[in-house]
């Protein structure tokens, strides 16, 4: 199973003028690879996995997903997107039901996947009874239940608190090692990317292009607090700094960050330093 994007563009009809979200993207994801895509706000990070999942079509170019008999990639979102009217287990069974898998088999698969994300005892709970991290784990189980060759993850941990996120990083690395899935993981957090990925692609501010590629060759399991990891993240961050500033200039009104009467001397082009 391999993902390949060739000369992919994606344009939207914006309110005033057309918006180019992705510009001439070419990338390949190898089977079993953990690839992270990092970029500043609004650079088309969410658009890319949508294209791969087939939820959107490229305006130009092609997105080739060589799935064969293995089924399509499954997307996981920033908010878990669990169906509130279904129990956790019925959520996990959702895709299997759509595929008309018999009930007994569905149940078996669902419990197995809930075991993998350590949520078995919450199988009968409703989504609103779960914490943010538990919801996200349920969403991962729901995706894994289909045994997709590729998991596409769009900032899946961005809404979680720092501790929960740390745990999720460990869990995801474990799941990846245990299942051997190909993972395309999107984030705006450089440390998270470096912590998880074999390879990190850095994107430019909008229109999103691929700017650099960083290979991360650190032993696993990794943690964001690992000092060697901080070094690699620093390198990546240096590469991205201009792009983050560019994105901020686009998204904030100029001068917005400054109190009245204290605009920076060098004029409207200057913006506060990156986070």
């Amino acid at each position, binding site marked *: 199973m391999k993902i390949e994007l060739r000369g992919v563009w994606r344009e939207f009809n914006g309110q005033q003028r057309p918006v180019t979200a992705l510009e001439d993207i070419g990338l390949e994801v190898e089977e079993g690879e953990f690839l992270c895509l990092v970029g500043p706000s609004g650079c088309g990070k969410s658009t890319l996995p949508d294209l791969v999942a087939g*939820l959107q079509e490229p305006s130009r170019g092609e997105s080739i997903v060589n799935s064969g008999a293995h089924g*399509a990639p499954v*997307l996981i*979102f920033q908010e878990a*997107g669990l*169906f*509130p*009217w279904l129990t956790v287990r019925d959520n996990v069974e959702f895709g299997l039901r759509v*595929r008309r898998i018999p009930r007994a088999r569905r149940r078996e698969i669902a419990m197995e996947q809930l075991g993998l994300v350590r949520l078995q005892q919450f199988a009968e709970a409703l989504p609103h009874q779960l914490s943010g991290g538990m919801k996200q784990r349920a969403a991962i189980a729901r995706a894994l239940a289909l045994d997709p060759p590729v998991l596409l993850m769009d900032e899946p941990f961005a809404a979680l608190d720092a501790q929960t996120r740390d745990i999720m990083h460990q869990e995801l690395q474990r799941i990846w090692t245990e299942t051997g899935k190909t993972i395309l993981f999107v984030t705006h957090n450089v440390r998270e990317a470096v912590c998880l990925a074999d390879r990190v692609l850095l994107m430019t501010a909008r229109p999103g292009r691929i700017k650099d590629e960083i290979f991360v060759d650190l032993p696993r399991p990794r943690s964001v607090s690992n000092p060697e990891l901080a070094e690699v993240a620093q390198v990546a961050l240096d590469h991205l700094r201009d792009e983050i500033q560019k994105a901020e200039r686009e998204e904030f009104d100029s001068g917005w960050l400054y109190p009245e009467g204290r605009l920076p001397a060098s004029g409207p082009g200057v913006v506060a330093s990156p986070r």
Partner: protein
Amino acid sequence: MPSPRSVGHALVEGFGDRSYPVAILASLARMLIGYGLAIAIGIPLGLAIARSILIRDTIGSAVVGLQTLPSICWLPLALLWFGLSEKAIIFVVVMGATFSITTAVEGGIRNVPPLLLKAGQTLGAQGLLLSLRVTLPAALPAILTGLKLGWSFAWRSLMAGELLYSERGLGRILTIGRDYGDMALVLATILVILVLGLIVSRYVFEPAERALARRWGLEAE
């Protein structure tokens, strides 16, 4: 103003000589048919409007206009079409309830969070399957609100219709009360109409709404 006592007397008498039970059954029978038809028309119409821009721009705008029209305005037309018959009143009930159901269904469907639709799609649900398994359940709370609204519109339309023309029913008893200047009978009948409305809302719609809210997590535990 009649004394509470005479109103109570009218109630006892009405239930004693079976005129209220018969009238209630006649009115409820019309409600069931009219409201049932309104649901059968209103829900598919709402789905169609939510689904197609073409239908929204044509029928959809008409529905918005029709919704503001008091349904009793249809009675003269109904009498011309159907003559002095049950059908005429039921037509008025249908016209009174359908469009509020349609509007609620359409709004409910259009407000389904895109995230849930995307989740359904990425898990392999498309077309009809996506509608049945994701869109409809997600819109169910809004649809239920529409059904409740539709019920009260149907009830009002029915009473208006029966008041103007009918052989049986609670509205008819109101007319008799007016014709004989029997104020106690009029008030007693209003009470019956009110209580019936309350019972349905209390024992049908409220429990259903509560059950949905609990299931959908829309309500604090």
